[in-house]
């Protein structure tokens, strides 16, 4: 749309929104947020990018085709759910690992649940962007 104001603001906003999206993703398990909300926010960042700088630029910055991103996200979610197989548990069973845990604090949690949420995040970003690009460009 070629507005220097929009473009200028976007320089900072895109980074901020992306950052915020990761924040929402990571805290989702304990506070409002989660993969889906975060994915929508991240998609909003790229949509903003595209509105300000054009579709081509936004696509270029994304580096992968959004549909692929979506498929990869869904596969990641499936893989995260399938990790339970390694422990001989049913699909989508949460596996938790607490790094540096002590008597009082559990330490930093690493889990396939977060991986699952990340898959959701990527799938949502990819899907929403696919939709946006196709509706905008066709």
């Amino acid at each position: 749309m070629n507005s220097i104001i929009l473009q200028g603001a976007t320089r900072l906003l895109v980074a901020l929104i992306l950052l915020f999206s990761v924040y929402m993703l990571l805290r989702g398990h304990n506070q409002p947020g989660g993969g889906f909300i975060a994915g929508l926010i991240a998609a909003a960042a790229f949509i903003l990018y595209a509105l300000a700088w054009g579709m081509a630029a936004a696509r270029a910055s994304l580096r992968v085709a959004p549909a692929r991103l979506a498929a990869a996200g869904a596969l990641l979610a499936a893989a995260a759910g399938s990790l339970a197989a390694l422990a001989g548990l049913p699909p989508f069973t949460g596996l938790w690992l607490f790094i540096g845990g002590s008597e009082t604090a559990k330490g930093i949690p690493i889990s396939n649940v977060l991986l699952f949420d990340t898959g959701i995040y990527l799938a949502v970003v990819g899907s929403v962007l696919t939709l946006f690009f196709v509706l905008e460009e066709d």
Partner: protein
Amino acid sequence: METALAVLVGAMTATGVYLMLAPNLLRYLFGLILLSNAANLAIFAAGRLTRAVPPLVPEGLDVPPVPVANALPQAMILTAIVIGFGLLAFTLALVVSCYRQLGTLNSDTMRLAEPPAAGGEH
């Protein structure tokens, strides 16, 4: 509280249905949005309402100290919102495609798949 939501859902349903019955596909789409929101609110009300206590467990506790809002309907609504988003977006694309291909958004004149003669001699 739920009673009010029930009435609201009914009203949204009514307006949504009225819109969906219009010949213009965009209006159908708007009606769908209304109906979809109404369905979500219905789920919300069905799980019964709790004022202003989100289903979060505060730090340091293992269970919520006070009665919190019912979490399961919220999860259901989240899923439904997302699914609704996908369906609505696809429908939007279809409407666009429809206008591009058929040159109209008036569903009364969309008779390509079921031409007036197909059911007999119109």
